[in-house]
C-alpha cells in the first residue's frame, strides 16, 4: 500500500466515523483521537473501516501505532 492509498483510507474512515471532523486541519503528528474528538466507540469503528479498506489485520496491540495521522500512514504502509 502506498502512502497515498493509506492517506485516502484514513480520510474515508474519518469521514464516515466523524463527518464533521476536520482532518485536513490536523497536523500529521497531532493526536488523532483528541484532535478529532473520537470516543472509544468512534475509534473502534475507525479501526474497523481501516481493516475493511486495507485488509490489514489490526490488533489492540497495534493501537499505539494509530496515535497520529503520520504514524497511522506509516503503520498501514507496512512501516
Amino acid at each position, binding site marked *: 500500500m502506498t502512502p497515498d492509498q493509506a492517506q485516502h483510507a484514513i480520510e474515508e474512515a474519518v469521514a464516515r466515523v466523524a463527518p464533521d471532523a476536520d482532518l485536513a486541519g490536523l497536523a500529521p503528528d497531532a493526536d488523532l483521537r483528541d484532535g478529532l474528538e473520537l470516543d472509544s466507540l468512534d475509534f473502534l469503528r475507525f*479501526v474497523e473501516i481501516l481493516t475493511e479498506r486495507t485488509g490489514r489485520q489490526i490488533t489492540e496491540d497495534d493501537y499505539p501505532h494509530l496515535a497520529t495521522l503520520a504514524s497511522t500512514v506509516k503503520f498501514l504502509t507496512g512501516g
Partner: protein
Amino acid sequence: MPALGADMDEGTVLEWLVKPGDEVHKGDVIAVIDTAKAAIDAESFSAGTIGQLLVDVGQTVPVGTVLAMITEPAARKAAPQPPAVPAELPRQPAPPEREPEYVPVAPARPAPPISPLIRKRAHELGVDLAGLRGSGRGGALTRADVERTAARRGPADAGARSKATPRARRVAAELGVDLAGVSGTGPGGSVREADVRRAGPAAPARESVPAREPAPAALAARSGAERARSMRQAIARLMARSKREIPHYYVSGTVDMMSALNWMHERNRELAVSERLVPAALLLKAAALAARRVPGVNGYWVDDRFRPAEAVHLGLAISLRGGGLLTPAIHDADGLPLAELMSGMRDLVIRARAGRLRGSELTDATITVTNLGDQGVESVFGVIYPPQVALVGFGKVTERPVAVAGLIGVRPVVVTTLAADHRASDGYTGARYLTALSDLLQKPEDLL
C-alpha cells in the same frame, strides 16, 4: 402524543409510518415525532388495526393529545361496536388487560410471570407471547421456547409484513429499492439501512461525497441552530428541576481495573474488530448488575415515595456532535450478554447521533450512567434525571500507583461516582452500590 421524556410537553408529527387499516403490533414504530431534543420513533403501545389518524404531519400538539385510533383485535367478535383506544398511552404503560374469555387455554393456576429478558427476545424476533406454552418450571416461558417458535415460523412468515426502520425506508425511496424484496437483519427481521444498500443498486460515487454514517435527519423540522437552542432549553428545564427538587448526595470510589482490562485484552485478541469490547461495556454491565444487587438506587421517585423498578434499564448519557445530549436506555442491561450489551451500546450511540431513537428508549431508563472517561476527566458527579433516583459516573481509566498486599504497583484504575436522591436512599445504600460495582469488576468473567 406520548411523553417521550420527562421534559417533553409537546411534539410535532413528522411522519406517519402507518395508514388507516394497517395492522400494528405492540412496539411497532408508527410515527416519527419531533421533540425539543430529537426526532423520535414513536411506538404503538397496543396491538390492533389503525382506525383514523387524528393529527396531520407538521402539526404540533401537547402531550396527551390523541394521535390515532387503534381498534383492538380482541374485540372483533364479541363487541358489535369495536371500542377504539387511543394510540397514545401513559408513560408507564400498564400491563395489557385481557378479558378472561380470550385466554386461549385457561390455566388452573395463574400463568407464571414472563421475564423482561424473554419479552425482549420475543420482541426482537417478532414472536407473540400470548399463544405460547412454556416448557420451563410451572409452565414458564423460556428463551428457548421463544427462539424455537421464531425458527419454526420460518422466513416466509417473517417476511409477510415488511418491517423497516424509517431510515431504511428513506434510503429505499432514494435508491428506488422495493422493501418487500429486501430481507432484514434487524430485530424481528426488520429491514435496516445496510440491508437496503446491499439490495439496492451500487452506492453512488463515493469519492465525491463520502457516505456518512450518522446521516443528517432529513425529516427534522428544526434547523441545526434551532435544534441546538431547543435542546439546550429542554436540558435546562430538566436539570433545573432536578436540582430544585432532588436533594442529591454523592459518594465516590476508586476501582482497580487490572483484572478486568487484562481479561478484556486477552479476549479481544481473538476477535474481529467488530466484535471487540471497550472498557465502557464492562463498566456498563457492572453498573447494571450492581443496580440489580442494590435495588435502592434503581427506580423512580413518584408521588412522594420511591418505587423500585423491576427491570434494570440502563440510561446512557450520549453527547451529540453538535452539542447537547440524549440519554436513551439499554433495556434489561443486567441480563444482556456482554457482547450484546456492547453492540447495543454501539447501536444506541449511532442512532442517538443520527436522530433515530425509539420512544421507549427515551422514557424507560431506571438509572443512568455517564461516562466521561473518553474526555479525559478523572471523575464526574452527575445531576440525576428525574424521576430517576441515581446517576452513576465513570471517569477515565488511568494508570496510578496503587498499594496491593503491602507493595506499590502501577495499575489501571477508574474513579466511580454515584449521585443519588436522598429522599429515596441514604449514603449507606449508595456506598453499597459502589462496593458492589467494584466487586463485580474484579471478576470480569462473570460479566459475560
